[in-house]
């Protein structure tokens, strides 16, 4: 177990090096320079000044030196400063992280809260009216583009019915509210984004749950359980569900990188100050340090997520053992 873990962890290092190297060169060699340095064709800003600013940012050095410098700093957990505003990259990320994390964790929570019971119920009542209806509804929601749902939801709940605020995550007087006032205010802002972002997932996962449950219900041990005279409830929830839940562990592991990833589209529609927009703007501005920080973050999380998925899967399912 420990040697396996160590091997996997060590394997991350060359992979990470490769990814950062490729990314660095792709980004720097792609056309377009950091926009902050070229301004928006502002006639007040002269050529000499732009050259000087480039030099101050170290962008005039050879690419490989730039990468080496970046790597050396990164190894000491120094991700540098954003070209856009001179702030520490780490500060900018930490500022956005809580919002994105909150929304993603809440979505994931709703995802499991709804998807599992729906899927289980549909499997238990396979081929009944309930099953057909949920199948249809889940198929519809699964097929609907998220941002379309967001636009429709906004139109209905925020404009027509005026039940919810339209954009942002806090009201303008947020700072002056009591703690429960803040909580209510936050929830009112977050409810639509969270629902919209989990709805497609609920549809997908409940389908997955349904088939996983159906498979579990057709296993020999279920017949055994039934023949033992256990009640249907015990059979379904004690024996079948346990086994049907196994694959979900993998899904949790694989959704870890997604927890920190924000969707730019989603965030711009609801005006949410999340990670997605930060990195989108960084990409458009060619803010190299910020982009590279994202590359590292995403790559690390993806690899960790895979690792956790593999390990936990093996852990809950004794049939799987690590090959050497």
């Amino acid at each position, binding site marked *: 177990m420990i040697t396996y873990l160590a091997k996997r962890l060590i394997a991350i290092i060359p992979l990470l090096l490769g990814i950062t190297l490729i990314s660095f060169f792709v980004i720097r060699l792609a056309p377009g320079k950091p926009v902050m340095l070229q301004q928006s064709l502002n006639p007040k800003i*002269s050529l000499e000044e732009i050259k000087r600013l480039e030099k101050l940012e170290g962008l005039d050095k050879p690419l490989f030196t730039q990468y080496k410098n970046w790597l050396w700093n990164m190894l000491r957990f120094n991700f540098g400063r954003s070209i856009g505003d001179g702030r520490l990259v780490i500060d900018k990320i930490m500022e956005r992280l809580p919002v994105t994390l909150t929304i993603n964790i809440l979505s994931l929570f709703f995802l499991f809260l709804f998807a599992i019971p729906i899927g289980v119920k549909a499997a238990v009542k396979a081929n009944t009216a309930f099953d057909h209806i949920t199948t249809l509804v889940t198929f519809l929601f699964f097929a609907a583009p998220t941002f379309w749902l967001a636009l429709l939801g906004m139109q209905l709940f925020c404009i027509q019915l005026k039940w919810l605020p339209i954009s*942002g995550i806090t009201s303008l007087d947020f700072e002056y509210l009591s703690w429960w006032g803040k909580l209510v205010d936050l929830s009112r802002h977050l409810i639509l984004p969270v629902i919209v972002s989990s709805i497609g997932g609920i549809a997908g996962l409940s389908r997955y749950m349904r088939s996983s449950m159906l498979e579990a219900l057709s296993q020999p041990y279920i017949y055994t359980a039934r023949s033992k005279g256990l009640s249907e409830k015990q059979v379904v929830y004690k024996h079948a569900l346990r086994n049907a839940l196994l694959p979900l562990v993998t899904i949790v592991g694989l959704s870890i990188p997604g927890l920190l990833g924000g969707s730019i589209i989603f965030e711009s529609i609801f005006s949410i100050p999340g990670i997605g927009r930060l990195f989108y703007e960084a990409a458009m501005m060619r803010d190299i340090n910020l982009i590279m920080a994202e590359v590292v973050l995403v790559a690390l999380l993806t690899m960790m997520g895979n690792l956790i998925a593999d390990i936990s899967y093996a852990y809950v399912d004794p049939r799987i053992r690590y090959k050497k």
Partner: protein
Amino acid sequence: MARIIKSFLIELSLVAIVFFIPCKASLCQDYGDALVSASIADARTLNPILASDTASSEACGLIFNGLVKYDKDINLTPDLAQSWEIKDDGLVIIFHLKKNVRWHDGYPFSGADVAFTYQKLIDPKVKTPYSGDFERVRSLEVIDDYTVKVVYKEPFVPALSSWGMSILPKHILEGQDLNTSAFSRNPVGTGPFKFKRWRSQEKIELVANPDYFEHRPNLDRYIFRVISDESTIFLELEAQGVDSAGLSPLQYLRQTDTRFFKQYYRKFKLSSFVYTYLAYNLSDRKFADKRVRQALNYAVDKEELIKMVFLGLGEAITGPFYPESWAYNHNVKPMPFDPDKASQLLKEAGWNDVDKDGVLEKEGEKFVFTLITNQGNEERLNAAQIMQRRLKDVGVVMKIKVVEWSVFLSEYINKRKFEAVLLGWSLPREPDNYDIWHSSKTREGEFNFIGYRNEEVDKLLTEGRRVFDQARRKACYNRIHEILYDEQPYMFLYAPDSLFVIHSRLREVSPAPIGIGYNMIDWWVPKKEQRYSRIAE
């Protein structure tokens, strides 16, 4: 928390009583309320000498002051300066500073701050993009606390307006690295509003400066809300979540033409300080002949563009100044939309449709070119499509290519790899156009990217920035305008109107040539109509 708010309220009501006693019923302007304006992008920094984006500049404009500013009729007036003298044919400017000004932290403002700001502007280590105008200063001398003498290397007319640059507080920033200083996110200025808080990508909150040297702003707060999507901003207007926002022509004419908007918002239509043009790469053989450029100008119907793209809300232009400017030459007669004349001129220039395929040829080469414009600007894309159709009528094929902004600048504009581009200039109030038209400004990265070269224009541009007499300057710029329209290095297209709404509870909002923000501190809301509580202070 509740107690704090309560005590705030008591204090505030005391303040209010003191202030309200002397005011007569008819003239009474209530204090209080907040103005919430929508911004599509967050500010990058609140250090005014580092800020170059719109959002940052707007916020800085309320927190800081320069020595001079533009009044509502676009004339320079004193701001932090009390007055100024221009001596030695413009080589020397002496500023007399106001004496009653304090920084937001109570420290008195003086000439040392001006000198400090100047030093930072010309410091090569400071990442400011504004050093250009200040490199022309030979020396800056603080004569006493309230007198500053600036000596220039040569007469430079835009020098005075360059002192509209915000002044920084020396007592806070001395010894700090401006590029990384926390000041950029917690600024202290002299302006009508004090910085209160900044939540990234959410809002910047400013509160009234009770000691502002003109007078305390009537509004308690000014809040910039960041809403990153234009359509969401409009939805927020419908929910009264923002008080002021820009509008598209469609929104201006149709979507705000409802009872709701008429009741709660005032719509404004002002001329803006931008214009759109089609620029030719003059080193391209096709566009070398003036007659060809004139022909293309005859072939495109500017009024049609304005009608289709801006639903009529814009103005056709004939030169490189905004139409309200004193430099704009209204005697230049626009060439009418005249496809026949266009065809005739093209023929004179040697372009004929020999093989009768609808496309002109000259020496075996077809008249086909690519127009490049930046991505994300729907207005330009629509305009390009309409022009494309008109040019086809006279036998010219124009292809359209849309490129992302960063790439557009670095790969096409700066490297001169284009045949024609569709772009806009946003112009400062000062008409000096030297960087755009002078033949010395054609290196990579400079703004005469079309490679325009005309000796007379060069001479006039130089004169225009050296002569202080307004009448003589006007003559220079009017002549430049005339030459440029005749030579058509750009096809000058239109200046769209600037369209926006402001919540109607705000009183004293009155448009002027400069815009509407000039008397922001006088805006007020009657007590009964106030929407935001006063707890902010």
